């Protein structure tokens, strides 16, 4: 199977590549439009800032390419946020795959640190992406912005407020957490994407 990880200026591509290699899969890391379009499955990772990243994608026409993909696509962290309609991070319009707003955490409680950094539980799992994953499984999050709950929410979590830990619409899947850094649970989620999505 031909798995392509989109290589761009906000990618934690190495970590995702390592995670797939541990599953016995050699991914292709590319920003070439044809290579991405011809993949069996596409992973859209991301660590960084929304506004310059959208700018970078637009300059290379990758924004159009990504939202028109027909094969299964998995967005990770910033990847998920960029697949939404709009982000408060840099007040930027994003790919618009999920009709969802990306908002900044807001808390005056000194116990609620921003970013959320660490292991939190996921609930109300409903997607082949979470096949055999138990309710309340722990995954690793690092983020200051979140995707609001919506009809496309396939996993919820709670930090300051309840929000979407994962989204799905048609062939597009996305997770706010880092499956590549979420120990055995994360491995299984990546394996599910490869085998069952």
């Amino acid at each position, binding site marked *: 199977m031909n798995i392509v990880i989109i290589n761009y200026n906000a990618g934690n591509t190495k970590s995702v590549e390592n995670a797939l290699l541990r599953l016995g899969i050699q991914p292709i890391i590319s920003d070439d439009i044809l290579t991405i379009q011809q993949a069996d499955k596409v992973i859209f990772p991301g660590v960084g800032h929304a506004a310059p990243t959208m700018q970078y994608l637009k300059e290379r026409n990758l924004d159009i390419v990504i939202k028109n993909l027909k094969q299964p696509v998995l967005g990770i962290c910033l990847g998920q946020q960029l697949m939404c309609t709009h982000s408060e991070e840099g007040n930027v319009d994003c790919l618009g795959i999920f009709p969802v707003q990306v908002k900044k955490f807001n808390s005056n409680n*000194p116990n609620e640190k921003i*970013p959320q950094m660490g*292991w939190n539980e996921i609930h109300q799992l409903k997607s082949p992406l979470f096949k055999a994953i138990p309710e309340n499984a722990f995954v690793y*999050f690092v983020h200051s912005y979140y995707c609001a709950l919506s009809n496309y929410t396939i996993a919820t979590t709670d930090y300051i407020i309840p929000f979407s830990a994962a989204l799905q619409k048609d062939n597009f899947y996305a997770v706010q957490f880092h499956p590549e850094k979420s120990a055995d649970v994360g491995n299984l989620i990546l394996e599910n994407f490869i085998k069952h999505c």
Partner: protein
Amino acid sequence: MLTKRIIPCLDIKNGETVKGINFVDLRSAGDPVELAKQYVVQGADELVFLDITATVEARKTLVDLVRNVAAAINIPFTVGGGISTIQDVDVLLNAGADKISVNSSAVKNPNLIDELSKQFGSQCIVVAIDTKLEDDWKVYVKGGREATPLSTKNWAKEIQERGAGEILLTSMNNDGTKNGFALDITHWCSAHLHIPVIASGGAGTKQHFADVFNIANADAALAASVFHFGEIPIPDLKSYLKKEGISVRL
């Protein structure tokens, strides 16, 4: 619920794990990659690798080590020690480190924190502070060998303003003593900063971990020798913390 993190720290010298007792008198505790894998199985939430040699020759060894660790484990890890340029950080993140930590170089050139967080994002920039109680808590550099006039409280606030994503606070008074974490300065940082605080130095018993979470309100606790020598197995520690009402990943 977001859980409190337990972080074993592996001090690295020439590619081997060592642990300083009060920063001197080093004992070897094994192969870093094997130790790292063992800690993942035990349920460590993150790992920290501190290169305590950090000479030019050791730097290449460290990058190779980071590459090997990144290939072997699937939890986040931080690399620190001797990092002073954007180039250093770029190499380590590309080798697979999730975060890097800076210490002396940030004190010497505070703009480095702004530059790194702007270039790579705050989430991967940890600023480590070695602190010692004198008339007030003061910042030390160069592995605790050199005093500075900086107040720890002022410096902690400044690094947050400059874009640090997390603070790793080591009390030199407590480090290596196994008498518990420095609860007062940890609590001060936790109460006055909006970024996560990792407490370090002094862990000797499971109760010490409960105290640093319950009393000092740390977000994470880091320790080395109690884990490396099996004095406190991580699964036992986490079960204990859960019984004490602390949210942990089991």
